[in-house]
């Protein structure tokens, strides 16, 4: 670890987590930012270092953590020459609450309440990936009732819609299209209202649990879903008219924050960032989970890897999600909404009244939790932001020995310096917005 120098005004509390001033940044620092991604040789990087301006021509600017366009508490340190971004570094951790540590003290049934708060814009995906990992460890991943799996898909696709609508709103706001912000929030609110009707909560649902879902779909859910779908279709066309063809909007986004497929792969970026480069990588299609192999939809790809492609991908993914939801409405089978394995599912309410054993069993499941066989497993789903993974290690007790969530935002944020490099500071706002980071998931 490098020691913290105190003589520099740009340095504050975070010490060596911050961007190194130029006089301390040599070829190694530049290598970190561009060289290794672009596979440059050491000599080329050294030449690049010689070609750089001196310290008195540049300034380091803090953007965030309290900047409206950083979507929470992302702090970017930008080194500027005039208006051009030379180097940058994301400083994160302002929202770190130790959720992985907390996860080691909660039972597998309590786990979803914890993970659902990580990516608060798409909480159901967190619950889903945690539940899938737990079920794989238990060995019941093949026995989950079909209806439960379809309900999970329904909720996740509705959640993907609300998450992408949130992106459209904030992306509009960041670029000055304030009416888009109001429209995006408006439609997102409709989907959240529907999720509230189904799960009881607008956010942090704790609805997808190991073994199935918490409850069956309520009366009138089908009408609610159809209402949202019918409402959103024409409004998405309105967004197209408002933004997609608009010259100012295109000029702000096209050619901004460009990344190539090889760079995105090298940086581990997934989701819309990877797809914007033209690689149709979508876990729902390429490594299907739930019943995604039984519905028809397209993996939306871009071709230039710029911020506009990422906007267009998310807009059209809302349409694809709506198409999936319509197919789910037709395909949803009757049956149980959770596994009837007494090991993980509490007995029905009626049995508790008449059976002492059922009461004891109910009590034990909610106090001690169920024991999970030893082992370690990694499961991944395609969240709106990319690959959301859960690595679980069980030592055979009722709580996970280690619960690791691989958040797509964390890795995607690390790709920011590469996308910002050489761009204008005004475009930095557009690039951050196009990555769509959720800081709750980045910091966990």
């Amino acid at each position, binding site marked *: 670890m490098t020691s913290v120098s105190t003589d520099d005004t740009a340095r504050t509390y975070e010490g060596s987590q911050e961007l190194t001033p130029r006089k301390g940044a040599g070829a190694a620092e530049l290598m970190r930012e561009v060289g290794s991604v672009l596979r440059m040789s050491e000599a080329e990087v050294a030449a690049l270092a010689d070609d750089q301006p001196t310290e008195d021509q540049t300034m380091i600017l803090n953007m965030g953590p309290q900047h409206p366009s950083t979507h929470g508490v992302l702090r970017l340190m930008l080194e500027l020459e005039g208006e051009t971004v030379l180097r940058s570094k994301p400083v994160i*951790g302002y929202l770190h609450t130790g959720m992985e540590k907390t996860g080691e003290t909660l039972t597998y049934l309590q786990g979803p309440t914890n993970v659902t708060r990580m990516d608060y814009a798409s909480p159901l995906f967190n619950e889903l990936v945690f539940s899938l990992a737990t079920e794989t460890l238990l060995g019941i991943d093949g026995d989950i009732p079909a209806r439960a799996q379809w309900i999970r898909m329904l909720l996740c696709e509705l959640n993907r819609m609300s998450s992408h609508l949130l992106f459209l709103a904030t992306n509009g706001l960041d670029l000055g299209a304030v009416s888009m912000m109001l429209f995006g929030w408006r439609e997102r609110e409709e989907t959240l209202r529907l999720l509230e009707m189904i799960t009881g909560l607008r956010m942090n649902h704790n609805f997808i649990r190991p073994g199935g879902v918490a409850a069956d779909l309520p009366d009138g859910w089908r009408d609610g879903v159809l209402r949202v779908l019918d409402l959103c279709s024409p409004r998405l066309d309105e967004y197209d008219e408002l933004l997609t063809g608009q010259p100012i909007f295109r000029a702000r986004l096209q050619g901004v924050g460009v990344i190539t497929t090889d760079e995105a792969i090298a940086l581990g970026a*997934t989701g819309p960032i990877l797809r914007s480069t033209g690689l149709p990588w979508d876990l729902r299609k*390429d490594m299907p989970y739930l019943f995604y192999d039984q519905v028809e939809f397209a993996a939306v790809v871009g071709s230039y890897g710029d911020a506009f492609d990422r906007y267009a991908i998310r807009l059209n993914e809302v349409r694809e999600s709506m198409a999936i939801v319509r197919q789910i409405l037709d395909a949803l089978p009757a049956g149980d909404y959770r596994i009837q394995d007494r090991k993980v599912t509490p007995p029905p309410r009626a049995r508790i009244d008449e059976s002492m054993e059922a009461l004891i069993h109910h009590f034990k499941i909610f106090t001690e939790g169920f024991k999970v066989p030893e*082992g370690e497993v990694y499961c*991944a789903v395609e969240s709106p932001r990319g690959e959301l*993974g859960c690595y679980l290690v069980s030592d055979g007790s009722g709580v996970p020995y280690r619960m*690791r969530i691989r958040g797509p935002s*964390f890795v995607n944020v690390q790709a920011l310096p590469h996308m910002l490099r050489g761009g204008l500071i005004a475009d930095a706002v557009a690039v951050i917005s196009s990555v769509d980071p959720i800081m709750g998931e980045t*910091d966990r």
Partner: protein
Amino acid sequence: MSDAEATSGFEDEPVVDEAGAAAEAQTRFGVPATSSRGQQVLHPTRDQLVDLVRTLRDDEGYRVCIDVTAVDYLAYEAPRGLPPDVGPERFEVVVGLLALDSHERLRLRVQVPAADATCPSLFDVHPGTEGLEREVYDMFGIEFTGHPDLSRILMPEDWDGFPLRKDHPVGAIPVQFKGVQDAR
């Protein structure tokens, strides 16, 4: 229940031959291999790690390093799923790889002793591991040799200890009460 089974679509799934798959991977990659719930796991040593990951990237199509994390096995006795020829250590660095063409995943579990908590950095092979390795350093205190910028990433700079180690208490901030002389 029987209805659900009939429609779940899982009944055609072949029985995974875990031992057979592990033996095949062992000969293919030259390091001890196991299978955990049907998922391929390799157990390279720290010295083998970087070369193995590079070979996997260049020759086997594992082009994405999806995750780098660690586990502190202080409170969990061996063998914990390790093959007999791998000596268990306190820490384990877990690397997740993804092959985009063959749609396969591979997990590497690297044993890291507590006395010498270092591990070679994968930064030269997969630059995207930079932030992930910083997080492992921040949470477990495992130092990655060859990492260009090893500093804390989530915790404050002056934090004492490494939170995800098992000997780090869950509530580490002392509770202070007014008027109490010795607040913990």
